[in-house]
C-alpha cells in the first residue's frame, strides 16, 4: 500500500485518507475528468462556479465598457464618472459586503479575481476597486460597531468611494510616526482632527475616509486610532492630485484635516487599537495588490501575443523565433507562479490559516514580475511598443508603483525575513 502511504504523507491530516485516495486516484486516472467536476479538485487555480462566473462577467464588463476609454482617462488624468457608476451597478465595489447591506455577499477570492480582471484592462480602476474592497470595506466589517456597519456598508456597496488615509509627508514606511492628531473633547463625545495626509488614493472621488490619527502621542503607536470620516465634513480639504508616472487616472492627493470634528461613534473599533487594525488590514490588502500586478502582467501579454503572431520579419512571425519563444515561455511561467501564489494566499486567508508571510511574498514577487513583463513586452513590440498606440507603455508606467505602495518591497523583505526567523527560533 505504497500509494496509500503516499496519500497520507502528501495530503494534510485534515483530509481523511479515503478522500485523499480518491483525489489521488482521480489525478492518476486515464479517463478525462469531466470539466464540471474539475472544479472540485484541490488546485488553487480551480475556482468555484460562482467565482468563475464573476470573473467572466467582470472580464466582459472591463473589455466592453472600460477598454475603449482607458487611454482617454490616462491622458486626462482622471476617472470618468460612467466608470464609477458601472462599478457600483455591477456590484464590484462591495464584493464581500453582506447582501442585507446591498453588497454582493461574496468571498475574498472573488474580490481578488475582480481586481485582477480589471487590472488586466486598467490598473488605475483596479486600485480603486482594490482599496474599497480589501481595505475600507473589510476594516469596517471586521471592527466597526453595528451602527457604523449599518450606516456605511450600504453606502460603500452602492454609491460611495472610500480612501485609506494613513500616509503623511513624514511617515510612509514608518507609518506610526504619523503626526495627525485627534484630540478628544472634554466630555469625550467627539474628536478634533488636525493634520495632513499625503499620497491618498481615490481622494478626489472619495465620500468616506478611513483615517488614522493619534489620540495620545505619549502612548506612541498605541495612541493610533482609526476613524471613519465623511469626506464632506467641515475642515476636510482634498488637495489637487499628484502628477504621476503611472496610474494617472487614479487620483492621489494630499488631504488636510483642519479642525475636523468627528463624533466618538465614528471611531472604528477601540481607541488606541488603530495600529493593530492598520497592520492587519494591510496584511490582507497586500494580496489584492498582488492580484492587480498579476492583472498587469497578463494585460501585457494580451497586448504582445497577438502582435508577435502577426508581425513578420525575415519571412516569419516574430513569435515563432526561438529566441522570442524562450522569452515569453519563461515569463508566462513566472506569471503562472504569481497566479498560484496569489490565489493560494487567498485560500489560506479564507481558511483561517496564517497567511502573512505568503501575502508579503506574493506582493513582493508579483510587483517584480509585473515590472519585468511590462518592460520586456515593450522590447517585443519594438518601435510601436514605445508609442501610445499600444497600451504596453501604459502598463510599463503603471506597474512601477507596485513595488512601492501598500508596503515597499524592502519592507516586504523585512516582514518575510522576520517570520522566517521566528519559524526557526
Amino acid at each position: 500500500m505504497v500509494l496509500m502511504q503516499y496519500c497520507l504523507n502528501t495530503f494534510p491530516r485534515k483530509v481523511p485518507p479515503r478522500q485523499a485516495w480518491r483525489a489521488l486516484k482521480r489525478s492518476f486516472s486515464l479517463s478525462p475528468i469531466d470539466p464540471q467536476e474539475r472544479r472540485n479538485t484541490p488546485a488553487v487555480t480551480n475556482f468555484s462556479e460562482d467565482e468563475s462566473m464573476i470573473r467572466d462577467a467582470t472580464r466582459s464588463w472591463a473589455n466592453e465598457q472600460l477598454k475603449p476609454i482607458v487611454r482617454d482617462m490616462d491622458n486626462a488624468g482622471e476617472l470618468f464618472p460612467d466608470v464609477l457608476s458601472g462599478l457600483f451597478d455591477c456590484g464590484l465595489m462591495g464584493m464581500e459586503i453582506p447582501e442585507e447591506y446591498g453588497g454582493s455577499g461574496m468571498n475574498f477570492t472573488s474580490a481578488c479575481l475582480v481586481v485582477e480582471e480589471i487590472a488586466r484592462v486598467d490598473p488605475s480602476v483596479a486600485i480603486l476597486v482594490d482599496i474599497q474592497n480589501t481595505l475600507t470595506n473589510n476594516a469596517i466589517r471586521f471592527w466597526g460597531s453595528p451602527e457604523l456597519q449599518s450606516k456605511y456598508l450600504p453606502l460603500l456597496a452602492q454609491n460611495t468611494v472610500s480612501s485609506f488615509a494613513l500616509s503623511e509627508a513624514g511617515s510612509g514606511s514608518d507609518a506610526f510616526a504619523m503626526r495627525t492628531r485627534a484630540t478628544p473633547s472634554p466630555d469625550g463625545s467627539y474628536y478634533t482632527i488636525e493634520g495632513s495626509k499625503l499620497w491618498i488614493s481615490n481622494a478626489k472621488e472619495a465620500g468616506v475616509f478611513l483615517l488614522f490619527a493619534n489620540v495620545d502621542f505619549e502612548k506612541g503607536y498605541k495612541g493610533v486610532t482609526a476613524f471613519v470620516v465623511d469626506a464632506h465634513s467641515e475642515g476636510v480639504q482634498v488637495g489637487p492630485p499628484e502628477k504621476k508616472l503611472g496610474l494617472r487616472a487614479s487620483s492621489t492627493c494630499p488631504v488636510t484635516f483642519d479642525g475636523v470634528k468627528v463624533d466618538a461613534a465614528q471611531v472604528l473599533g477601540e481607541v488606541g487599537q488603530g495600529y493593530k487594525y492598520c497592520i492587519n488590514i494591510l496584511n490582507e490588502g497586500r494580496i489584492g495588490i498582488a492580484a492587480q500586478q498579476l492583472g498587469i502582467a497578463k494585460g501585457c501579454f494580451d497586448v504582445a501575443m497577438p502582435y508577435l503572431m502577426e508581425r513578420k520579419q525575415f519571412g516569419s512571425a516574430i513569435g515563432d523565433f526561438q529566441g522570442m519563444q524562450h522569452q515569453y515561455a519563461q515569463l508566462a511561467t513566472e506569471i503562472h507562479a504569481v497566479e498560484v501564489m496569489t490565489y493560494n494566499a487567498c485560500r489560506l486567508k479564507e481558511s483561517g490559516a496564517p497567511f502573512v508571510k505568503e501575502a508579503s511574498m506574493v506582493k513582493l514577487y508579483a510587483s517584480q514580475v509585473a515590472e519585468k513583463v511590462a518592460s520586456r513586452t515593450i522590447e517585443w513590440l519594438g518601435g510601436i511598443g514605445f508609442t501610445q498606440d499600444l497600451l504596453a507603455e501604459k502598463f510599463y508606467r503603471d506597474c512601477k508603483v507596485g513595488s512601492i505602495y501598500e508596503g515597499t518591497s524592502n519592507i516586504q523583505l523585512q516582514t518575510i525575513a522576520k517570520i522566517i526567523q521566528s519559524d526557526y527560533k
Partner: protein
Amino acid sequence: MRILVGVKRVLDYNVRARVNAEKTAVDLSNVKMSLNPFCEIAVEEAVRLKEAKKADEVVAVTIGPKKANETLRSALAMGADRGVHIMTDLRTDYMQLQPLAVAKLLQKVTEKEKADLVLVGKQGIDSDCGQVGPMLAGMLNCAQATYAAKIEPSGDGGLTVERETDSGTETIELTSFPAVVSCDLRLNEPRYANIKSIMMAKKKKVEVLKAEEMGVDLEPMTEVLEVYEPPPRKEGIKVASVDELVDKLRNEAAVIP
C-alpha cells in the same frame, strides 16, 4: 402575459472558430461558450417588458448538455424568472440537432407553459440559420414578426413591432397571441448582470426535461458532408490605372461583363 425566451449556448463570439482535423465540424473541445448575442437581446427585451409591467413572467428555455445550465443562469441573472433546460448531448450547432427539431421542442414548451409571447434571437451565431422563429410560428399557427428592431406595447394589449428589411422598416401590429418575435441587433443593448443577480440566479427554479422523452423526432433533416475554413485571403495587387482595374475586373476576376 407570459414570455418564453429561447436562449442558445454557442461558441463565444470572441473565439476564433477552428475546424476539427476530420473536417466534419467546428472544434468545440475546451473552447469558451456563451449566450448567443441575439438571444441575449431577446432576454433583455423580455425583461424590459416585464419591468414596464407589460408582462408578468419571463421563462428562459435552452436546449443543450449539462453545461448549458450556465447559459440559463446568465438569462436568469439578467432578470428571467425561471428556466426550462431541455437536456441533450446532441450537438446544437446544426451538426446534429437542427432547426426543425428545435422548433418542435420549443413548440412543446410553448404549449406546456401556455406562453403568450415567444422571443428568440434572429439566428444562432454558430448555425446562422434564422429558421427556428418562423418555423415555430408556423407550427403554432400564430402570428410572427422577425428581425424586430423595436417592440412597443400598443394601446389595446397588442404589440407594435418594427422589423428591419433590406428595403426599409416594416411595421407590424401583433394583435393575437401567442405570437413569435425574433430579435435583431438594434432592438436593445443588453444589461450587464451584476454580481448579486448572478448569485440570486442560482436560486431561481429550473425545470429539467430530456429531449429524447419529449415525443419529438430529433433526427437531422440534412447531413453535413464537410466543414472547412474559407480559403485564406490572397494578397491584393496594386493597379496603375482605372483601365487596368477594369481589365482585371473583367478578365481575371470575371465580376463584370
